[in-house]
């Protein structure tokens, strides 16, 4: 048997065991420097996921970059519209332009945008809004008037109350945002200013999380490790004994993380928690082993004999607890979220590695201890020996609970019922900002800026016209008619026409399918125009007709320049405002209406969409004579086939985003999209909703799958359906109670909470396995359930409780972390331990008492 070989090897060649471990640690530790941190929530979706691909395409198509938002607030009577604040803002904006890794030409601030205004009768003026800071209050007031007059700046660049202004900094790569923010902060510190500054934006939250996560990996995990160590020392009172589980946990973590990094996986928010998850699991088995060893080892046995006895005894439950934990985590591979899959599979690997080390390293370690140490060990009584406080309370617990089975069982059923109600109250929601605690500067900045502005969270509604086939049909019909007519006049244009079509086709090499046909038409127009100059006299008339037809079709193709199309967008925008979540939306309509108004003397009657496509085109042509014509292409593509509505949301909560999505769906049902137009979502806030939905669905599958497999394993392990199902009770109760609490407390069901179902599944079945296995042995040995059950509240109950306490308390330092997912894990570990320990020790014995007739037939029959 493999077990025998392994254990014999450990006993015979302990030095080899240590050497092999050392080599493994060196090899895997050597891989660690290759670590790549990845905090991009977009990576929660596979890179080829449909919505993510579209989001990337939209970013490329509209030239949109991720944004860092710098907010500046002055609560004085003039708000930020005072010469000093504006001077500071000007200086800050100018210096920001020199930071590496940003997109300087797209930075939005009062100091970089254009003003469109009237300059006397019949005169329109394009000028920088604030090329130089104003020197008088009157000049500052003029800037205020100008901003309030321009809808696409008001409430985006300056808040309507004039108290807050924002600088939007587009960045090239999200993973640079922490550095860029540090540089911006450096500039702010160097300014002589009374204003308060706040920095926010999703990329900042993500990158900051990455940096702080790294810190947490370096602090929280070791602190938790230390506390676990101290608790074990309290229980076992032997440093030499408890050093081994700590070494084992370290080796497991180093090998698992080293393997993960070595295999080229990035360390994501999820995988950063692998070490925190592995530590309790790795420690649990060895604590069981050592707990029994210290109980069994006396002067009159050899350590090897005692250890062999313990291993014989615990091998099966340890194997099964490890397998169940591994399966619980491996089932996460069923979710469609790559970082969660990696997390689950590597933990499963770590769990099995810890098991393997438990049955090899721990025995090798114990027999390698010097005789003096062992001597000492045999003499030390563990803190909680049979008469210690823990032992006494457990005995009392056993007696007490078995005396009031009905009350306790009713209470258990009541809690179950209440939990079911709680589970139904669960709100599925996530928001990367909520991964920080409320007092975190990012959460504060987020709150403050969203109080003043329309919203700092972005989502995009993208409308695309896909009627290429119709365009082509119209084009062919028109041109064929002209060619036919030419033929009837015995002018054969076909060879020339074919040649023109071909040459226009050759240039079309756009990545974007939607624009290929209009691009072809545009090329063809130029080709015909060129040809006209060199054409034979008899061809000219027809070529001109062909040119006109081609231009007609090309004009029709410019869909989002047509007043009807813009009216649809305008109405949709108005409807979005009624959600209360969308603070503001920006679209090409806003540019058209504003410029049209300014072309018409700034009269508010003209704040509307002009009546013809040509009027819209010429309005937009006028706008392009500004300093920043490129701003237009963030809202509509140059071929006018795709338009994007930029939504500024006040909240990045997925529930709120989902509500906006539902609103738009309803709107589209009652106001159908124009023919050929397709609507899709993009933007980080939307992407978060997509992966969350995938996660929730995936988690249900994964949990059900794991639950089913673990149930089968229990039935197989105990060769009994009844025992198998009983063993599932603590685990089911733990999961149900914990999610019941989540529901009642109103904590959002977010990514960390979802993942913890796997941890509950893996850890809470352990106690039941140990308990049932030991009880059956005890019943065999003692002859009856009645005799066996009090003994269960001695050594076996102590081992279980020690474990529960060590892990529950050991991970409380996670509550001190500034990152909420770490707090959640700390809290949950404690809850899992307490609930599963109590259910195992209280409810299982009661149920077994009722069912003993079915469970222990043989033992009862032969007393």
């Amino acid at each position, binding site marked *: 048997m493999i077990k025998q070989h392994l254990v014999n090897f450990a006993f015979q060649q302990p030095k080899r065991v240590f050497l092999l471990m050392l080599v493994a640690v060196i090899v895997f530790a050597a891989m660690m420097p290759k670590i790549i941190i990845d905090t991009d929530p977009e990576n929660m979706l596979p890179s080829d996921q449909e919505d993510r691909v579209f989001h990337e395409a939209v970013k490329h198509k509209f030239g949109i970059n991720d944004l860092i938002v710098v907010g500046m607030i002055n609560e004085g009577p003039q708000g930020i519209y005072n010469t000093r604040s504006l001077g500071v803002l000007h200086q800050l904006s100018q210096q920001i332009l020199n930071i590496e890794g940003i997109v300087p030409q797209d930075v939005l601030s009062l100091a970089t945008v254009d003003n469109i205004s009237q300059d006397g009768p019949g005169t*329109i003026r394009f000028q920088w809004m604030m090329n130089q800071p104003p020197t008088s209050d009157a000049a500052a007031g003029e800037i205020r008037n100008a901003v309030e007059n321009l809808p696409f700046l008001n409430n985006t660049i300056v808040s309507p109350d004039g108290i807050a202004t924002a600088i939007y900094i587009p960045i090239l790569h999200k993973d640079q945002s922490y550095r860029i923010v540090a540089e911006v902060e450096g500039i702010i510190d160097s300014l002589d200013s009374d204003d308060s500054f706040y920095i926010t934006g999703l990329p900042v939250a993500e990158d900051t999380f990455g940096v702080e996560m790294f810190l947490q990996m370096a602090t929280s995990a070791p602190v938790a490790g230390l506390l676990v160590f101290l608790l074990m020392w309290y229980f076992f009172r032997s440093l030499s004994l408890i050093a081994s589980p700590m070494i084992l946990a370290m080796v497991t973590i180093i090998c698992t993380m080293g393997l993960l990094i070595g295999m080229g996986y990035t360390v994501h928010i999820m995988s950063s928690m692998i070490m925190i998850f592995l530590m309790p699991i790795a420690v649990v088995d060895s604590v069981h082993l050592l707990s029994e060893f210290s109980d069994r080892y006396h002067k009159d046995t050899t350590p090897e004999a005692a250890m062999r006895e313990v291993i014989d005894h615990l091998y099966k439950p340890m194997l099964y607890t490890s397998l169940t934990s591994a399966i619980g985590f491996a089932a996460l591979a069923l979710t469609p979220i790559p970082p969660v899959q990696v997390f689950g599979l590597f933990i499963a690997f770590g769990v099995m590695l810890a098991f393997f080390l438990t049955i090899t390293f721990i025995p090798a370690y114990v027999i390698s201890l010097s005789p003096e140490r062992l001597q000492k060990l045999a003499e030390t009584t563990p803190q909680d020996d049979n008469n210690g406080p823990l032992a006494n309370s457990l005995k009392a617990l056993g007696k007490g609970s078995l005396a009031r089975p009905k009350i306790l069982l009713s209470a258990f059923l009541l809690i179950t019922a209440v939990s079911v109600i709680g589970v139904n109250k669960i709100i599925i929601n996530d928001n990367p900002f909520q991964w920080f605690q409320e007092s975190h500067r990012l959460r504060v900045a987020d709150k403050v800026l969203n109080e003043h502005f329309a919203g700092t969270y972005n989502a995009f509604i993208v409308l695309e016209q896909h009627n290429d086939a119709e365009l082509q049909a119209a084009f062919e019909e028109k041109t064929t008619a002209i060619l036919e007519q030419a033929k009837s006049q015995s002018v054969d244009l076909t060879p020339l026409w074919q040649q023109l079509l071909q040459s226009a086709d050759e240039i079309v090499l756009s990545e974007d399918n939607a624009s290929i046909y209009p691009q072809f038409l545009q090329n063809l127009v130029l080709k015909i125009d060129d040809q006209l100059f060199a054409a034979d006299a008899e061809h000219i008339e027809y070529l001109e007709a062909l040119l006109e037809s081609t231009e007609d079709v090309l004009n029709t193709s410019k869909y989002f320049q047509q007043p009807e199309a813009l009216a649809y967008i305008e109405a949709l925008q108005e409807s979005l405002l009624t959600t209360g979540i969308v603070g503001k939306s920006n679209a090409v309509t806003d540019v058209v209406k504003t410029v049209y108004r300014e*072309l018409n003397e700034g009269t508010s009657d003209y704040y509307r969409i002009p009546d013809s496509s040509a009027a819209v085109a010429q309005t937009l042509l006028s706008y392009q004579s500004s300093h920043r014509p490129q701003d237009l292409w963030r809202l509509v593509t140059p071929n006018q086939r795709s338009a994007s509505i930029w939504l500024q949301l006040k909240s990045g909560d997925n529930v709120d985003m989902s509500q906006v999505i539902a609103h738009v769906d309803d709107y589209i049902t009652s106001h159908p999209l124009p023919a050929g137009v397709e609507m899709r979502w993009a933007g980080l806030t939307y992407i978060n909703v997509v992966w969350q939905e995938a996660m929730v669905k995936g988690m249900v599958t994964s949990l059900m799958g794991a639950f089913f497999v673990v149930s089968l394993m229990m039935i197989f392990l105990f060769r009994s359906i009844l025992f198998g199902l009983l063993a599932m009770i603590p685990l089911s109760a733990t999961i149900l109670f914990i999610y019941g609490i989540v529901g009642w407390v109103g904590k959002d069901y977010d990514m960390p909470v979802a993942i913890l179902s796997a941890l509950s599944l893996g850890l809470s079945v352990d106690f039941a396995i140990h308990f049932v296995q030991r009880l059956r042995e005890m019943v065999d040995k003692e002859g009856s359930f009645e005799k066996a059950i009090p003994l269960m509240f001695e050594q076996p109950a102590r081992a279980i409780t020690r474990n529960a306490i060590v892990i529950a308390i050991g991970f409380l330092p996670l509550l001190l972390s500034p990152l909420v997912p770490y707090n959640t894990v700390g809290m949950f570990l404690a809850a899992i331990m307490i609930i599963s320990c109590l259910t195992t020790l209280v409810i299982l014995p009661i149920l077994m008492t009722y069912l003993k007739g079915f469970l222990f037939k043989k033992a009862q029959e032969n007393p």
Partner: protein
Amino acid sequence: MKGFSKLLALIALLGATAATSAEENDVELIVSKANHVAFYQGNDGRAESRMLITDGGGNRQVRQFTILRKDHSGPDDADQDFLVRFSRPSDVRNTMFRVIKHIGNSDDRWLYLPGLDLVKRISSGDKRTSFVGSHFFYEDISGRSLGADQHELLENTDQYYVVKNTPLDPTSVEFAFYTVWIDKQNWMPTKTEYTDNAGKIYRRIEALEVKDIDGFATATRMKASDLRSGGSTLTEMRYISYDIGLPDEVFSERSLRNPPQQWFKRK
């Protein structure tokens, strides 16, 4: 063959040397000659221009227009009239742009938008705004006043005078300075590079093709590149003629709504 090209090179070199010795690093003279070649060839002229605007994402747009120009009588290389008529894209067809360029004073500019049936005067002020959405600025088309910058001859190579131009009023422009390469052969400024306050070159204008037309050196292919966004605009000038005898009335306000067809027609 080889000998022949050597001979050509030698002649070119001699020509260049002759030019250098004649002007002897007089930087003001160099820039004024370049200014003349770039903006003042002939007394008047007509050209058709096609701009292909490509943005950083590869999107392409077209602007096609015909441009008429006439120098005012009086001092050389001074005030000028321009009239521009757009023909493509067809939705902006007949949009007109009229300019009276004043040296030492702001220009007068008008726009006629047929779709809105509206004549708008465009406030003078900043000339460094985009020319109809292209990567060329209005100032690149009409010419930057020689008095706006301080000129310094950086280099005098076999082929070029390299002149550094530093603005006298740095707050009025977005660059720290710009450098111009002036071809000694024909005085054409063939390359201009703009450097920002951080010392980075962020913008470039090149004359890709210079042709002799009616005896005047003329840039027929020009490219403006925005090095930050990766976008660029290629301008092709065709059907160019000089000294065609444009009457003054062509440039009147009336022409905005009623463009003088005979001068805009391709001949």
